[in-house]
């Protein structure tokens, strides 16, 4: 379980980092989305992985049986904020494409 998830996080991170280093704005936005998945999963994983653990407080269940709620609360807001930043970046991307006539991240093609 842990092994697969950590491999998955690694692959997502690698793909994301590769994409944000690319010169096209759309690649960067896709890369950021992948990175945010990876980071969210990582933060979530900090609390430890539990399958079939109760998510809702039930009387008589010891505290140690539950999943760690703190990383979950962090990730929950991060997901929503991630949407907002993606939207912001998308709009900047579109505006930059309209103003500069290119989708290079620097607003002009590299001359090399």
């Amino acid at each position, binding site marked *: 379980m842990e092994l697969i998830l950590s491999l998955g996080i690694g*692959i997502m991170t690698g793909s994301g980092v590769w994409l944000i280093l690319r010169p096209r704005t759309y690649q960067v936005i896709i890369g950021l989305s*992948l990175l945010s998945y990876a980071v969210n999963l990582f933060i979530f994983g900090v609390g430890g992985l539990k*399958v079939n653990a109760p*998510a809702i407080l039930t009387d008589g269940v010891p505290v140690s049986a539950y999943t760690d*709620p*703190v990383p979950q609360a962090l990730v929950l807001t991060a997901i929503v904020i991630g949407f907002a930043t993606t939207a912001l970046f998308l709009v900047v991307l579109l505006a930059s494409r309209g103003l500069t006539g290119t*989708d290079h991240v620097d607003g002009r093609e590299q001359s090399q």
Partner: protein
Amino acid sequence: MPEKFLLLLLFLPFVGSIVTALLWRTAARTLPAWLAGGVALAATILTAFYYPSVTNGKIVRFEIAWLPELGLNFTLRLDGFAWLFTMLVTGIGFLVVVYARYYMSAEDPIPRFFSFLLAFMGAMLGIVLSGNIILLAIFWELTSIFSFLLIGYWYHNANARDGARMALTITGIGGFCLLIGFLLLGHIVGSYDLDEILAAGEVIQQHSLYLPALVLILMGALTKSAQFPFHFWLPNAMAAPTPVSAYLHSATMVKAGVFLLVRLWPALSGTFEWFWLVGIAGISTLVLGAYFAIFQRDLKGLLAYSTISHLGLITTMLSLGSPLAAVAAIFHMVNHATFKASLFMAAGIIDHETGTRDMQKLSGLFRFMPYTATLAMVACAAMAGVPLLNGFLSKEMFFAEAVETHADSILDRALPYLATLAGAFSVAYSIRFIHTVFFGPPPTDIPNPHPHEPPRWMRFPVEFLVFACLIVGIVPSLSIGPFLGTAVISVLGSDTPQYSLHVWHGVNLPLVMSVIAMIGGTILYFALHRYLAHAEDGPPIFRHLRGQRIFERILVTVSWKWARWLEANLGTRRLQPQLRLVAGISFLAAFVPLYFSGFEAKLPPLTGVDPAFAMLWAIGMLSALSAAVVAKYHRLAALLMIGGAGIVTCVTFAWLSAPDLAITQLLVEIVTTVLLLLGLRWLPKRLGKVDDSTSFTARIRRLRDFAIAATCGVGMSILAYAVMTLPVPDTIANYFLEHAYTEGGGRNVVNVILVDFRGFDTMGEIAVLGIVALTVFALLRRFRPAVESIEVPEQQRIQNAYDHDQPERQEGDTVRDYLLVPSVVMQWLFPVIITFAIFLFMRGHDLPGGGFAAGITMAIAFLLQYLGGGTRWAEDRLRILPLRWISLGLLVAVATGAGSWFLGYPFLTSHSQYLTLPLIGKVPAATALLFDLGVFVLVVGATVLILIAIAHQSIRTYRVKTPPKPEDA
């Protein structure tokens, strides 16, 4: 007097300043002056009433807790010394206002002048009254800022701008040093409270940080008081209107430096370092300032250098570390303020009447303005230290102290000679002032050839101050004596020495020194007389060594040459290198500490593979990798691929017992995909290949990026594996799990954390969400799409062409009927989804759901109407007003939080209970639910605003090649 009136005293000038500033539209010239004068007079009277509370070392304290955890309190403190200084600040402030009323011409923006002047007065009172050194540093910087604004008052004049900037730079740097020095001092003593610092003199002087703290504090004090080598800003500040020079640059602000030295005298003085640092600065300033003053052509320049010299005298006395010298220093501060302010005012009158301040042009003015001339002569005599005037008394005290041996060294032994020399210089420049301006033939070359006496009330402040010089000079013990005593006791406490303020002490060494200085100065002046009448501005030799030029050279080097060099060599505007740097540094930041702690040995063996989970993640990894490959040329495919990765993430959350995250992830996945799809409409197709992908450098670049990406990926994998497998220590999770139900009243701990335990964080987050939505909205108002994408998309064009060719069809029919059945279904789903959103919201406290998830669900309901019916159709039927939703949501959240104040609890304390409603049964009714309602409403507003703003672009009309009208939103 009750101590809380100190607050009134401090804020009166600031309030006056704001009120005066509001008068800027009125043409009235007298109203701002009346207001400012009234404020200054009220402050003076208020201060006077405090006198009985500060005699005999008594202290008035007023304290408001500000950040008590950090030792920062808003402490005001008035003792005898502060009282004397407050009287100077408010009293001379009043006189300056009266004077300025007549000095300023009708064309000047009068309200701005008085507004700044009052604000400065407030800041200066702040320095004097602060009982906490950090507070003092804040007011200290405020005086620098208002001095900047006042010097630059005539900002159309380049000299004023330059002078203002220089003064701000020098005193600002000094103020910054002072702050650091104060922080060190606070660290040494363990408190920023002035009283505790004053009581901790021994601790401070024994501490290893004493020297750094002392040097930094002295940097602040010496720059402010224009001591050598930072003196050059003061002559350049003379570009200010003369009332400002009289007030800030002779009587008050420049005294702040020496004020501070006296204030901290009990804590810092008496050491070897103090003597040398303060002494060298003081003595060189005393002598050089006086020497430079002789050779000035500008009347105000002469007075400025004389001010520098007198401040040097005060500094020198403070350096000696003897209580008697400290008495003399305090005494001289008052005396200097009186005679120098009056001299500046006299210089202003001369300038006002003749139109020039050039001493080579001025001459014989006595016949035109005998009254002013007499006043100026008396003040000048006080400056030169002539008997029966106040300047004589403090100068005699200085001479007496100069003769005494304090710390046997060259400096100490040379002091009597240097003091006499400086005394002679001051006699010389005083005579020059009087002799050139008032005597000799009538002036021939002045702009205004008919000077006369100024208005009655313009002269009044000068008269008052000169009268004070005389009274103090003739009967010191009856006039200034008691007040000086009060001030001295408050500084020196039990060390207060015996001193006498008599005019006549018999023939002694100080008197002989005075006589030598008088005679020497007179001889010196008449020897230089002819030279000075035609010489260039500035003293011989030294005139080529101008601090101003050095300062500007340094400024240009630092702020222009170095900055440009750094920017050119270390900066880049290109995004890719920056991101490479970010990725590299992030990797190293994680790798280096882990590597050195040798953590890889502790990793548990690789075990446990669930085949179904492995299949799931095989899809996830494949999606991520293919997104990375195709994102350049196949945008839609890449979007689908990250959608796949998102779904895998969502299933993972569900699998690993995090239903809340799974729901939110799924919903956000939907809106993100729609968002990017909407964006793709405006991103033109890439025609042909970009980048020469086969070139050698491109390959190298790609290889390097691949290496970075692979390294980061591998590193992240190992890190994640380590974090997930190593045992988790006790965390705060247990606290939340144990208290969520008992204190938060909810069974869904994640939601309780969000809306209750960490409610404040959530409030910040929804605020960010709202801000981002507004930014997106604002950016899209002026949106100019790529030229290639303005036309109707190809598919629509094909469909329209088809309609056009069929005789029975209208153009647009196909587009309208596109996906007809699904769109009807979507329209019908509208109420269903809204109900579902409300359901998610209501159960959020006890079951998976909550404001975030419900808000996005609600937004999807709106979004579907746009998708199903088209933008026009939806906007004809629905007025959503997302801006109102955002504001309402934020207001509800804040109001819920603030509500707990009214019940006496801290912000965002929540209360929970269950209500029984008919039909529905028991429902939770925690106040956190109300907060969650705010979250819900805001998330709806923000999400809808973002999506609609983009969706709306498709029905805007863009003119090809010409920019759209700005208001075309």
